[in-house]
């Protein structure tokens, strides 16, 4: 028994990380690397931050929440569900308008979205999903929302919007730059400059309900480390200082 305690101080632990869909590829890579060095197991529940927050509110067994906007984290904080000391805003991103790679639709500016050629626009549900909310904010800033609102097809999350455009079912969509980067079947028609677009922020925190608060904090710390930053950067995320 003494020998056990003399070695590693914690048994291998399984952490449930609820994270925004746009973080899928980067987190899977970072999680894999962390598993090797820590011995802990990282399980991901990836989807729309709004859906994940809702599941956490209903008692889903999450240890860490990594959201694509501050609002969802604020909602959980207001209900006293997060460990406020562990909260930090880690990443930023930018929006892009995408069409499928073989499309001959020409979009050179956001105003083209209101043009006659565009019948439908795929957005992660602008009522609740961060990517959709950012897109709607951007379109409102450009005074285009009233014109394009009726063409919007709301989908479950930003990767669903990407998939809709990839499959050709919907001819144009707005996703994060990092989502467009991992897809070979879409092309970026217009990139929203980060200065003029909505302020995008990805906060993360350990949840109060976590039964592995120490291990969770360790992983959160790793996510903020230089090794993780390299991976996030590789996928195109902006790592906040």
């Amino acid at each position, binding site marked *: 028994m003494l020998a056990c305690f003399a070695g590693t101080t914690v048994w291998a632990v399984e952490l449930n990380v609820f994270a925004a869909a746009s973080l899928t590829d980067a987190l899977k890579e970072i999680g894999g690397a962390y598993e090797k060095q820590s011995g802990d197991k990282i399980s991901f529940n990836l989807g*729309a931050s*709004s*859906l994940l927050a*809702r599941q956490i509110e209903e008692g889903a067994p999450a240890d860490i929440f990594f959201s694509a906007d501050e609002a969802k984290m604020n909602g959980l904080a207001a209900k006293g569900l997060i460990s406020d000391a562990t909260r930090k805003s880690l990443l930023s991103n930018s929006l892009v308008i995408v069409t499928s790679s073989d499309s001959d639709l020409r979009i050179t500016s956001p105003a083209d979205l209101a043009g006659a050629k565009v*019948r*439908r626009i795929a957005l992660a*549900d602008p*009522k*609740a999903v961060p990517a959709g909310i950012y897109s709607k904010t951007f379109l409102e800033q450009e005074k285009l929302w009233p014109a394009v609102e009726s063409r*919007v*097809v*709301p*989908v479950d999350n930003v990767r669903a919007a990407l998939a809709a455009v990839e*499959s*050709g*079912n*919907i*001819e144009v969509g707005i996703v994060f730059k990092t989502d467009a980067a991992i897809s070979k079947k879409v092309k970026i028609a217009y990139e929203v400059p980060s200065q003029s677009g909505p302020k995008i922020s990805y906060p993360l925190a350990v949840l109060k309900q976590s039964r592995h608060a120490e291990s969770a904090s360790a992983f959160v710390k790793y996510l903020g480390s230089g090794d993780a930053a390299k991976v996030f950067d590789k996928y195109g995320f902006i790592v906040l200082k």
Partner: protein
Amino acid sequence: MTGAEWQLLWFTAWVSAISTILILPFGLATAWLLARHDWPGKSLVETLVSLPLVMPPVATGLILLKVLGERGAVGGFFYRHFNVDIAFTWRGVLIALAVMSFPLLVRSTRVAFEQVNPRLEQIARTLGASNSRVFWTITLPLASHGVIGGMLLAFARALGEFGATIMVAGYITGKTATLSTEIYHSFNNGEDAHAYRLLGLSVALAFLAVWSSEWFMRRRTSAR
């Protein structure tokens, strides 16, 4: 209940009703063939017809999306030649509901046809009635309660359809949102009161539809 909620209920009800009416001729024909005829490959037809009942609805929905989407065989045809969209419109909802409730209609009406005494049909034929006349004046009237029961069951199934609908038509408020997809989305968006009101409506509707379906199917026209 808000105006938007009544509108949602109305849309769900009418698209379910239209889908039931749409599948009726095909359902009756299929049920009659399965009830009264035998042919090599009959079991294959029976299996294919029952597939949407057993397959995960989202899987059926995925097949429909591939076929009815803008790049699909059917969807592409309608888009290129008539400029009509099917996927992500009420037409997609209609087809999803029709496909998902078809097996239930066929199963119920097949049982109803099988319960009609074949001797009565044979007697009619010996008296000179054509097959079609036998069907419309003997078989169908005697099976009518089972047929209505089957229609109500198919209607109830269409009302509650989710998986295929969400794949083919998505969730577009006011255009393709149905009772079930709206419950899912509004709950996830934290609109609990709205979701619970719709939940109550769903239970009431389903109860009514199934209860009346059972009532019809229990009553058999006596044939002496």
